[in-house]
């Protein structure tokens, strides 16, 4: 008989029963008539025991598979939650960065406007009037919000590219 692979050695006892039953069938003349009934009874007993064990193993195995599936589902769920949290965190971080940049730009615009543009516009105000000057400043201030959104989207895209 060929050597059983290591993992099937767990069925050593069952293999032994099968081997002796086959031996008996191969040489029927070597066994007296009365021993056949006894051997058959032993084989039936072993078969009943094996059947019981197979039923148990099948049922336990299915249940353990079920347990494994539940664990996998739980891991997948937790993974989704983690991904969502990470995305939210990235969005928040990028939003903060965009706001900081826009604030710095606003401060820069203010300084440039006060030091360079304003004196020149004062001259222009004589032509367009004071309301024209205020309108220009309001346009710049309103333009800051779309700029922040634009910056945020750009930074988010960069973060997504880095992740890949």
């Amino acid at each position: 008989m060929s050597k059983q692979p290591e993992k099937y050695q767990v069925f050593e006892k069952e293999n032994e029963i099968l081997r002796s039953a086959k031996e008996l069938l191969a040489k029927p003349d070597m066994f007296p008539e009365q021993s056949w009934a006894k051997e058959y009874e032993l084989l039936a007993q072993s078969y009943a025991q094996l059947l019981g064990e197979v039923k148990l193993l099948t049922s336990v195995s299915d249940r353990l598979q079920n347990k494994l599936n539940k664990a996998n589902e739980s891991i997948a769920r937790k993974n989704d939650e983690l991904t969502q949290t990470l995305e939210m965190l990235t969005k928040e971080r990028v939003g903060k960065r965009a706001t900081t940049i826009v604030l710095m730009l606003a401060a820069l615009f203010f300084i440039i406007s006060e030091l360079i543009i304003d004196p020149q516009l004062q001259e222009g105000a004589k032509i367009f009037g004071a309301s024209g000057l205020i309108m220009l400043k309001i346009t710049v201030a309103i333009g800051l919000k779309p700029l922040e959104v634009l910056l945020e989207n750009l930074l988010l895209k960069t973060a997504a590219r880095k992740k890949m």
Partner: protein
Amino acid sequence: MENFFLEETSKTPKLSFDVSTGKFLMSGRSIPENSIEFYKPLFEWLDEYVKKPCPKTSFDIKLEYFNTSSSKCLVEIFRRLEKVTDGEVVINWFYEEDDEDMQESGEDFKELINIPIIMNVIEN
């Protein structure tokens, strides 16, 4: 005869079999690469133990997960303990209260094995 003891690993359970008190313990996970190779020394130890067992043998099983070949090895362990004639043998099967799978597995063993298996809930 010496006690049989093996420390728990990520894939194999803790095995603590005390020959002087008859207190046996198997706990943790049982998913060895080769179950028969892992359990064979224990089978041999039990073959010796059943020849001269303690008056009372108490076997605590606190497994959180085991693979199919380990369940066959568990059957083999129980079959050996079934051979104890001059002494009492009790198996205590522990399971966490929300672990129905492990509870039902214990019930399955209970139907097959001719040793009293007492089901014990571990409350979370």
